[in-house]
């Protein structure tokens, strides 16, 4: 997030697109709802009429996968009606003409046809955004989990730059991160192209710095593989050993049948985990890990805040901290690492070797955490980025972006669109929530469909139906709800049985390799 959670409550305007915050980030939604109660304008754009839509001044029920066209349509109005922030654009951005030329191809009438919302609503949203500034834009996986995920993200940035809504409190582009430490895992360089602190592996100076710090002669200069490419190379043995730390890919990745084929092809699969999972079934070696509460450490939240996590008990049996397991493997491959606690790793390696964290030390985050960038030990941390329109690369670069449909769209055989996500009472593949009593609140998966489709097909609420895609088929309980638009089936991936990922499409954004979890085609049938 460019900005911070606590700002939301006092914002003038919040534009939520592709985020069902009430279920996926409940505490963030409290602040959004409080802002509305204090008079803020809330705009919600989503294929589903989820709970936040009830609080919205404007709810645009856009078609799945239409985000770029919808946002281009809004920007078209801002430019043609001369409502955008010319001062901000001229002073802080570049390539405006390229953006303008592209969005002029998306008049509201055209955007309306793609997004399936009225053209006048697109105009109303643009005008509302223009007169209520600054405004914050929030998104979650509704934006990213598409074959055009990167383009969707760029479009949200285009919009906020055009409105001059960056670089101040109450504005920003705010992706709410799904997992407690997905921000941290990125920050720590668990990415194929960067060391921690986003220092590129292709930069010779960065490689030299880390080679020296890690006491090795050289470091690899070629960016590595992303997850889907790693797995795709398992059957051919181009990747022979695969190490999975705490992820349950066999339930959480798209097209489970294919994922399991890939995992079962691995010559040597190593897992660190706290439980046996559907994924560890394919392992050759499983290391038992310390869980939350069994090790000291830090998480980084969506708002770039590095927070402390504390140990209250020993791990069960012989389970060990994960950092220790990696250190022991390194030792057995001839490398002695000095740091022997989380605190030492952070204070002696992570913090001094990356500028954004230089000022963050364990001693400084005993209570509230600090938000990076925090370049010195006197620095208070950064609550919002790009102050005064100063972007990391210099000027904010507008991108001319063309809308593209999802890889698989509805047809005669598979007339429904399947979209997926998380529900309030569970988390991912339930390894945790399934062992914490949450099944009392939600004990099985459902296929959510709208009342009209249910009536047309003669399906009653609670009836078991068959949902099938080109990749698989599941028997699942129908949940009839007016949150869902006509022609959509919505499912989650919390339960092994009827997991949406038996059906989802393993196609990816070409750059980010994010799978299109939000859109594939499917059909539903009554079970005789």
């Amino acid at each position, binding site marked *: 997030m460019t900005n911070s*959670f606590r700002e939301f409550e006092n914002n003038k305007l919040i534009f939520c697109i592709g985020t069902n915050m009430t279920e996926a980030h409940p505490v963030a939604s409290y602040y959004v709802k409080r802002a509305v109660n204090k008079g803020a304008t809330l705009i919600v754009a989503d294929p589903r009429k989820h709970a936040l839509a009830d609080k919205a001044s404007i709810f645009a029920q856009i078609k799945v996968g239409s985000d770029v066209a919808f946002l281009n349509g809004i920007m078209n109005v801002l430019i043609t009606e001369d409502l955008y922030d010319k001062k901000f654009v001229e002073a802080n951005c570049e390539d405006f003409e390229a953006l303008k030329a592209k969005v002029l191809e998306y008049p509201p009438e055209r955007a309306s046809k793609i997004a399936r919302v009225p053209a006048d609503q697109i105009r109303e949203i643009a005008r509302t955004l223009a007169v209520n500034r600054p405004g914050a834009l929030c998104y979650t996986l509704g934006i990213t989990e598409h074959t055009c995920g990167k383009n969707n993200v760029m479009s949200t940035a285009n919009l906020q730059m055009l409105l001059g809504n960056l670089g101040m409190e109450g504005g920003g582009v705010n992706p709410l991160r799904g997992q407690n430490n997905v*921000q941290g*895992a990125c920050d720590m360089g668990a990415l194929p192209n960067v060391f*921690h602190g986003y220092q590129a592996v292709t930069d010779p100076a960065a490689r030299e710095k880390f080679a020296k710090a890690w006491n090795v002669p050289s470091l*690899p200069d070629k960016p590595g593989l992303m997850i889907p490419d790693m797995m795709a190379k398992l059957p051919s043995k181009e990747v022979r050993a695969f190490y999975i730390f705490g992820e349950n890919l066999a339930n959480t990745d798209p097209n489970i049948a294919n994922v399991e084929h890939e995992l079962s092809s691995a010559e040597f699969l190593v897992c660190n985990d706290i439980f046996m999972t559907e994924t560890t079934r394919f392992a050759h070696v499983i290391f038992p890990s310390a869980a939350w509460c069994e090790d000291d450490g830090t*998480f980084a939240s969506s708002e770039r805040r590095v927070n402390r996590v504390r140990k209250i008990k020993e791990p069960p049996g012989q389970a060990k901290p*994960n950092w220790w397991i990696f250190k022991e493997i390194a030792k057995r491959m001839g490398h002695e690492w000095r740091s022997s606690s989380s605190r030492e790793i952070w204070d002696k390696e992570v913090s001094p070797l990356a500028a954004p964290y230089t000022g963050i030390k364990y001693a400084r985050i005993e209570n509230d955490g600090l938000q990076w960038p925090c370049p010195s030990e006197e620095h208070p941390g950064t609550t919002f980025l790009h102050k005064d329109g100063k972007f990391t690369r210099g000027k904010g670069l507008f991108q001319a972006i063309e809308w593209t449909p999802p890889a698989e769209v509805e047809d005669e055989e598979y007339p429904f669109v399947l979209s997926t996500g998380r529900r309030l*009472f569970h988390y991912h593949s339930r390894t945790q929530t399934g062992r914490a009593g949450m099944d009392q609140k939600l004990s099985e998966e459902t296929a959510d469909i709208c009342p009209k489709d249910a009536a047309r097909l003669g399906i009653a609420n609670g009836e078991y139906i068959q949902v099938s895609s080109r990749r698989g088929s599941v028997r699942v309980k129908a949940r009839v709800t007016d949150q869902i638009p006509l022609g959509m089936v919505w499912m989650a991936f919390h339960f092994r049985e009827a997991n949406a990922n038996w059906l989802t499409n393993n196609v990816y954004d070409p750059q980010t390799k994010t799978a299109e979890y939000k859109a594939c085609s499917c059909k539903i049938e009554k079970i005789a």
Partner: protein
Amino acid sequence: MSKNIFINGKGFSFEGEKTVLEVARENGIYIPSLCYHEKVGPANKCRVCVVEVDGMKDLQTSCSLAAADGMKVGTTTEKVLEAQRMVVNLLLSNGNHNCLSCEANGDCELQDAAYYLGIERPPFVIEEHKEREDSGAFILRDPEKCIQCGRCIEGCNRLVVNEVLDFGYRGGHTEVVWDNDMPLDDSNCVECGECVQMCPVGALIAKKGMGRARRWETKPVRTTCPYCGVGCQLDLHVKDDQIIRVTGTEGAQPNMGHLCVKGRFGYDFIYSDERLTTPLIRENDGFREASWDEALNLVAGKFTQIIEESGPDAIAGVSCARSINEDSYNMQKLFRSVIGTNNIDHCART
């Protein structure tokens, strides 16, 4: 500009707009209060926080009375204590405030008020019996302990804006209800537990901790929630190695004490009997237990062999977006500096 008020004859300075109760609390002066909570402000319901003010005829509720320069306030005059005793006695009589096995014993604002006022036995008779509402997965409501302060309702509607709780019925029959007085489990309540955290007494209780520890036996340990990316701050209330209950850390960034159902009640997976406790090595169709040495040597040996035969890029790894930063840092360090590949990723973009 700094202003002064006098409480029980002693002067205290304060800045800005404050209530008498706030100034008193800041200076360590106890005035019993029940319906007031700093997160929702004065409710003017319970009238237990009354004080006597020079120049004002009636007793004033300190939670809503703005402190003014030169104001003289008495918190312990006989008139004040008598009024407070009456209020607390009436509250004690309206319900069954039996502290013996109450989960809030030792951490109860009604108990504190009764103790301060020297009430040993309420002089009035207990009225009617009310059933516990036990349908919730995680929250128990005991209406006999409810003092109808309304803090749970304010929290539900104004703080987390879930808009489920309200007062139902009238007069002596008033009680806190879910939706239109539905069982909790059938209502729209999502069991975020804000009401439990706001409750000054033992009327709303987290079920998971019941009967497992008195409040004074646990110590709070601050940590960060293991679920979504908001980064809520939690206080784990721990006895020995057991989490007895979880509360949101008041005043902490970013959640200011608020939590959701998973953060507040989803903690006990760590105690599951299904936890992995020993390294495992595949054997035939299953796994056998192994020592750390054997398992680590097997992995290090196999990695070394693959690097020699096929190069470092024949090894790939996925880190964990759930575990701590330091684990991810060490894993990418292993891949880059020891194995010699950048084939390290995690579910970063989903």
